[in-house]
């Protein structure tokens, strides 16, 4: 998987970035608390993704690192120095916004040169470095174009080149790919990751797309209602979610009624390990991943209700004999038809569990 590859890149690349530390940060807007005591430590050269539904506070957290949002209490440290009193333009950060951030009256080259101009770099040297930065994102040929002549993906690449030209100590990305087409998104996120690891720059990346977060980040922080629910590597979040919200948010899960006896989840005759914090014995709702179920000849009986072709695999919905509808992920060669009677079995992977009450 790509994450293992990039992880090894991270450990071998020089950690030239700064550390970013949020400590007990609180921020409230009129009537609602956006950040409810956030603690976050980002290592040099690391890419941390802030992931969560809209309103969870991830953008507010990012903007308070940049200084575009003030905080009510707590500390924000970049490289060990408290930046609360430092205005945005002195924090030495680079930021990429979701859209519309390129200056419309300047050419691509002038846009990228802007940060250097603010630092009073001489014209010739400015141009040289700006072209270098554009080369990194592959857009040197477009240096004399204007923003409205570029596609969305190209605009964001220019924005990235512009943010990185001054070699800031932290790179902040506020949902940079959300406004782009699906295919461009996938391609561009790999570009961003590649450049980030080459430069070894500490990066915080905000997104609501869990697939994106899992694909690019060294660590992911899942946020809800102003708190970090869990922070860990993508594998940790997927395989061992700390609670049901994380399990539900990251990847797909089936909810199946089960029983918790002596700390073991009993479901359709299988004994499964419980993930996360211990829960009291009794009835629970187990969260089972679609790939942790298979078609078998002697499992739980059910009827197929629908089947979706997803290119490299299929996801089929099956109504089990006890009425629960589950999704199973399987190879494409098997093509179940609606109404077909089938039999499914659990592979036995550990599961998270929810208390059996209406929640969320």
């Amino acid at each position, binding site marked *: 998987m790509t994450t293992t590859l990039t992880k090894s890149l991270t450990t071998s690349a020089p950690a030239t970035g700064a550390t970013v530390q949020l400590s007990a940060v609180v921020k409230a807007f009129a009537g609602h608390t956006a950040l409810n005591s956030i603690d976050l430590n980002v290592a040099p050269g690391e890419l941390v993704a802030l992931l969560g539904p809209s309103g969870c506070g991830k953008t507010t957290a990012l903007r308070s690192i940049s200084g*575009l949002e003030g905080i009510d209490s707590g500390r924000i440290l970049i490289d060990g120095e408290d930046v609360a009193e430092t205005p945005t333009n002195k924090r030495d950060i680079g930021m990429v916004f979701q859209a519309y951030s390129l200056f419309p009256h300047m050419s691509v080259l002038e846009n990228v040169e802007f940060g250097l101009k*603010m630092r009073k770099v001489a014209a010739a040297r400015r141009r040289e470095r700006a072209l270098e930065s554009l080369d990194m994102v592959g857009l040197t040929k477009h240096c004399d174009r204007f923003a409205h002549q570029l596609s969305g993906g190209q605009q964001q690449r220019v924005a990235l080149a512009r943010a990185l030209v001054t070699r800031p100590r932290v790179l902040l990305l506020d949902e940079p790919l959300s406004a782009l087409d699906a295919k461009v998104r996938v391609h561009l996120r790999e570009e961003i990751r590649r450049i980030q690891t080459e430069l070894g720059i500490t990066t915080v990346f905000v997104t609501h797309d869990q697939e994106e977060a899992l694909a690019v980040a060294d660590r992911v922080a899942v946020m809800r209602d102003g708190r970090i629910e869990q922070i860990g590597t993508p594998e940790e979040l997927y395989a061992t979610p700390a609670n049901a919200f994380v399990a539900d948010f990251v990847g797909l899960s089936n909810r199946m009624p089960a029983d918790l006896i002596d700390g073991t989840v009993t479901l359709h005759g299988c004994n499964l390990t419980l993930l996360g914090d211990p829960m009291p014995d009794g009835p629970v709702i187990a969260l089972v991943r679609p790939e942790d179920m298979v078609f078998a000849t002697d499992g739980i009986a059910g009827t197929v209700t629908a089947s979706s072709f997803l290119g490299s695999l299929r996801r089929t919905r099956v109504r089990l004999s006890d009425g629960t509808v589950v999704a199973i992920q399987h190879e494409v060669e098997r093509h179940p038809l609606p109404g077909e009677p089938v039999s499914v079995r659990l592979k036995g992977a550990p599961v998270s569990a929810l208390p059996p009450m209406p929640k969320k």
Partner: protein
Amino acid sequence: MSLATEPAPEQGGVEHSARQHPRVALVAPSNRRRRLAYAGLTPFAAYVLIFLALPTILAVVTGFFSDDGTLTLDNVMGLFTPTILATFGSSFWLSGVTAVIGAVVGALICYAMLGTKVGGLLRTIIESAASVLAQFGGVMLAFAFIATIGVQGLVTVILRDTVGIDIFADGVWLYQVPGLILPYVYFQVPLMVITFLPALTALRPQWAEASATLGGTRFAYWRHIATPVLAPAFLGSLLLLFANAFSSFATAAALISQGSQIVPLQIRSALVSETVLGRENMAGALALGMIVVMVVVMWAYSVLQSRTTRWQQ
């Protein structure tokens, strides 16, 4: 008979429905419907022809005829006599000065409104006040300023009695061209607010934020980003203000009852008293001159407008 040769698909297609609904003309218009639709345009076309096209053409063309109906260039040449040139000069001067003052003060108000809630109380009040005052011209405006800075005006009297300044010490200037400046500015500033505010509020917050993250100070943002982006809109509004002042008649007519110091008043003289210049058709030549100026100014305005909208993707 096969279904394929069924005639008139509008009549229900496959089913022979007894009920025929007359479809909206959009759906497969027949030739007859098309001609009917064209006929619908004729009332408006006739109206515009009679009351806009015809008067405009007449206004321009009368300048090329003399009193007895012969074709002549005398009237047009008359535009270049020193008196008339001076009149145009005064008009340009008055329009230019009031346009600049109106543009600067109006832009300042728009700046002060940055960040106010769209649809909020402050903004609604200012926008309503602006639309009212932009229309508050002519006779009523003249009254307002006579009451304010006329010989017995409120401000005149206060200044004279409390501070000892007599603003008319060098003669009463209210009823001459310089006296038009203040009344004109009174409707120029609101017009600027109306036309420039959309441009100012189209400044994207991301630009200011990006500028800050790239190390720019407040001054750098305004100098390198906000001002260049706003320049076309500002200049466009300035031109609009110029055109507006240039074509104003009522205020000047109310304050200056006799005389023709600016072009619209010159037209009044030509139309009303046939003896002053001896040629009523002079009005036509003056109208032609005014149209030429207006066309140039409005053309420049439209060029600047297209530049503005290009950047507001």
